[in-house]
């Protein structure tokens, strides 16, 4: 039971971070379908720092890895920013390309590094046993991860940015009616860039959190298994509002956690379902939830439409 709560909380943290990133980006008017790729790149950045630092104090390690993951995510999100804000590219296409590119590039780079270190090693894995321990505080068998705090801070921060702040209101104006925002002197390009970069930061952090969730070795060929898209579903279910996103993330986290822990429940074991059913669970729940919540959608009105100064 403790294990289930632990996994629920850590997966919910991942989803919260990434979904909040998607939420900010969409409020600024850019659909960020590349979150999945941003997560991979963030995870890669964090993992590389964890590997190079090796042994240092826990505080330095945690901060350095988080900063690296966030920066890597931001840097990678620039690909979306350039294409979607300045070149009016199809945001769905660019996001998809970013997802494919991230997994492929991460695999190539990690393999190259592993092979350079040891010519017989062709795997795409990075190991971080010692570093992972520094992220975790063990309380009577419950593995508390610092990322849980980070996720809560992110929820509060995004809430304040969006609703209690001049910047957030301007940002949201750009997602609802950019021409109107422009007419009162708001720089739409700047606002959209901030939206994309913040989503890159949060996505990168989420990626690092994801690979730290259960294992201390990550194979980059696997990417992040659709988590970026689950996060977008969480965002839609949360109706683009930070507090609701937090609740939705907990629900989805629970179902994802079940696939890691169902063997610990005699009741679930007695159902005798194949393990794959539990693997599918988060995706199935996601579809059902979306079917019921998408109808009355409160999506930002101008999301996905490239900003054109001349149009009305």
């Amino acid at each position: 039971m403790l294990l289930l709560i632990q996994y629920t909380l850590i997966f919910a943290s991942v989803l919260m971070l990434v979904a909040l990133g998607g939420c900010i980006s969409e409020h600024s008017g850019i659909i960020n379908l590349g979150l999945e790729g941003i997560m991979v790149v963030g995870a890669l950045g964090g993992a590389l720092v964890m590997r190079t630092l090796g042994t240092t104090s826990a505080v330095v390690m945690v901060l350095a890895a988080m900063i690296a993951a966030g920066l890597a995510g931001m840097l990678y999100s620039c690909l979306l920013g350039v294409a979607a804000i300045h070149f009016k590219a199809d945001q769905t296409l660019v996001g998809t390309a970013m997802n494919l590119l991230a997994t492929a590039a991460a695999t190539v780079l990690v393999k190259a590094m592993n092979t350079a270190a040891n010519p017989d090693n062709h795997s795409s894995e990075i190991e971080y046993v010692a570093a992972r321990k520094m992220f975790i505080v063990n309380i009577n068998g419950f593995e508390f991860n610092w990322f849980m705090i980070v996720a809560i801070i992110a929820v509060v921060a995004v809430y304040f940015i969006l609703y209690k702040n001049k910047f957030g209101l301007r940002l949201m104006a750009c997602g609802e009616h950019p021409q109107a925002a422009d007419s009162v002197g708001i720089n739409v390009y700047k606002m959209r860039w901030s939206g994309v970069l913040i989503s890159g930061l949060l996505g990168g952090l989420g990626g690092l959190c994801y690979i730290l969730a259960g294992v201390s070795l990550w194979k980059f060929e696997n990417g992040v298994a659709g988590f970026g898209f689950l996060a977008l579903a969480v965002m839609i279910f949360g109706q683009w509002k930070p507090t609701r996103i937090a609740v939705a993330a907990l629900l989805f986290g629970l179902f994802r956690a079940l696939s890691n822990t169902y063997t610990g429940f005699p009741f679930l074991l007695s159902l005798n379902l194949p393990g794959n059913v539990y693997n599918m669970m988060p995706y199935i729940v996601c579809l059902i939830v979306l079917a019921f919540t998408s109808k009355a959608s409160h999506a930002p009105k101008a999301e996905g439409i490239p900003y054109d100064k001349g149009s009305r």
Partner: protein
Amino acid sequence: MRKVLKNQAVQTFAASILCILAGLLIGYIVLLFINPQGAGESILNIIKNFFTWSRPQSQLKQFGNTLAKTMPLIMCSLSILFAYKVGLFNIGTAGQYVAGACASLYAALAWNWGWLPCMLLAMIAASALGAITGILKAYCNVNEVISGIMLNWISLYTANTILSNVKETASPYTLYLNKENPASMLPTLGLEKLFNGNTNVTLAVPVAIIAAILVWVILSKTRFGYELKATGNNKNAAKYAGMAQNRNIILTLMISGALAGLGASLLYQTGYMRWECTQSSVPAMGFNGIAAAFLGGLHPIGAVFSSFFIQHITDGGQYVNTNFYSSQISDVISSVIIYLCGFVLFIKLTMNRVITRREDKKGAKQ
């Protein structure tokens, strides 16, 4: 000359070539970055693919293998572009492909069906999956990209579970089709003789090419295709003109799914590939289809050539120098190409702007 440059098809072609060159250049830079020694040779090997073999017989045989894998890719890119023309980004093609593979392999191995019924079942299963996305989109307003991704994972795990019943006991792979049920394999029509006895080249080749032509005819020569495209261009205008937009969305995704399912059957029923029941990621074929569709300028005939190119460099990836690099470098190149395809509209606009400016100048002089 200007007239030629103004031509849409020429512009699309030029933009695609630009994307390819830029993609290869970036791939080369990545190789250089990893290890400058041997980068040039490796990128050339990717471009050469089967020509890296010295004997013409081996070249032909490897050419046949690339061709065998090109056919499913053509189908996947047709699936993507068909939906895209109707304004739907069917990323679920990857999952529909999985459903097709699962249905055709299971029917062939568990029920001993012949090749045609297996193929039809693959199309039905995949189009049913497409219908789910379509219904969710039409009636519940669920974004087709997100539901598509969710269905990709659901179908992957389902396929793994179902196909575990017909796998070899000692390995995670499904049983050999040619040993269990040769009747389920696609007829080769004597095509293998052209490829030095490579039996992976089958009926799939003509089927895929005919499918491409059919999709082109449907989209640009029939009323049905026109209605679909109208729905894609402006949902409300289409509704106003009396077109059943919900029906059109669902039908589109069903057809798109059927194309992807056919693609899977065209690969797995050659016996060239077997399903691995423990795989933890959705096969890349569906995603490469996106690259091929956009690189082909979203034209069915263009898709045939771009699919061959994408498969050519994907296969070429295995000839890189594995002392330094890995074959996934091809995936990097094709994903960069997809990314750059996002700029195609911009490239075309610039081309047109330059041409009109020159024409204006010329007009002013006269």
